[in-house]
């Protein structure tokens, strides 16, 4: 009975160890492409011949750093990528403060004031949108108008590529 328990414990430990070792290997990439695509160039200069093109999210293994350039290995190629196109973590999803929380400081204060008018006014929350700053006129309604323009990344990229003929 004891033997069975020990064998089971041994198997669990071995499995955990193997999983851990594997996660270490999987995490070996140093850099991830953040831009839609990143040319891997033969030398640290934008005009150099392109050896390959990595796509957004693809991992690159860093070998050397030189100013604004990283020497990387990508698939079977070794070349240079601009630091302006890569980051140390996989590309993050778009962050929105509009839908996720409704936590808009200057406009949020006004909305809370409508729910708790007296208390909020006493705490100085009942400011109008145009009077949040003493120095500048502030217009959040126009910001919302600007945010209402919807263009997807795919649509924008296709439009750009159509223009440059790619």
């Amino acid at each position, binding site marked *: 009975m004891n033997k069975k328990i020990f064998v089971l414990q041994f198997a669990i430990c071995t499995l955990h160890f193997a999983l851990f070792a594997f996660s270490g290997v999987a995490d070996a990439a140093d850099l991830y492409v953040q831009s839609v695509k990143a040319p891997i160039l033969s030398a640290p200069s934008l005009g150099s011949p392109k050896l390959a093109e990595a796509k957004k999210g693809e991992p690159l293994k860093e070998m050397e750093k030189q100013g604004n350039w990283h020497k990387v290995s990508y698939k079977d190629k070794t070349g240079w990528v601009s630091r302006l196109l890569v980051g140390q973590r996989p590309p993050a999803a778009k962050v929105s403060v509009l839908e996720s929380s409704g936590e808009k400081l200057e406009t949020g204060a006004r909305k809370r004031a409508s729910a708790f008018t007296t208390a909020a006014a006493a705490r100085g929350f009942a400011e109008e949108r145009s009077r949040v700053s003493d120095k500048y006129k502030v217009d959040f309604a*126009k910001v919302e108008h600007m945010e209402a323009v919807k263009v997807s990344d795919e649509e924008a990229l296709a439009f750009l590529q159509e223009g440059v003929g790619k």
Partner: protein
Amino acid sequence: MKKNRGQGSGVRGQKDRLTSHVLRLTVFMLFSIYCSLFTAFAASDDFRQRASQGDESFSEEDDVKAEVIFGRGLAARILGKHSFYEDEKLNKYVNKLGKGLAQFANRPEIEFRFAVLDTDIVNAYAAPGGYIFVTKGALRNMEDEAELAAVLAHEIAHVSERHIVKELNIKGTEVSPVSGFARVLGGGTGAVKAVFTQMVDKAAEILFEKGLKKQDEFDSDRVATMIISTAGYDPSALKRYLKKISSAAKETKTLTDTHPSFDERIKNVDSILADNQLTEKKQARVKERFEERSRGLRGKE
């Protein structure tokens, strides 16, 4: 015999106990190795994370949220000063082009937004969090889409390089001078809210009066050249645009008050082009589409 059997079972019992101890010890050792390895890996991961916080901490979600909320406040001040230029076709065009270019920068977590301002001042502005503006005056000085792309890319670069964010140390974490920024956004006290307003006013002062650091402007010109050339536009477009507006000195006074001199910027762009072997490189200028989309603007001159 009974005695011997008894002795035999006693030896077997000892063997079983020994095996049991050995197995126990093996499991214990393996568990210890596992734990120490786990700690070592976890520690190195934590160290890597902390080490990278110097220049990467802004990609943390709270910091990005703080940046966007701060940027909204600054965009509200830009739009308090200038009206939109009402031209649906042109506005959509600038948004499509800008959002296309932004994908060649390293801030995929930012939702970039663009607008044209109804003023003859020749300028463009960027607020943290991806709020970008170009004036009607600047657009009238452009000849093709590559030049517009260069100006938008210069502003995208201010966002991607976090120039204002770094200047004012905007973070969502407790270590920020605007301490507990993220918490404030959920309902801070009047005093904390006042600090927020003062900080955004300070950023507006930078945009409208003082200007960013000279080096930040040079860096944005460098990033802009990288963005447009990677996207497929004429790498010299920014230089062409700067040369053109430098001759319209009176109109561009605001720009020279907040930016390095045109001569310095052109010299900087020249060296960026030369360093990258782009001086002679011919890429798309896209004149027809630009003229067609901005026809309304020219008609109202």
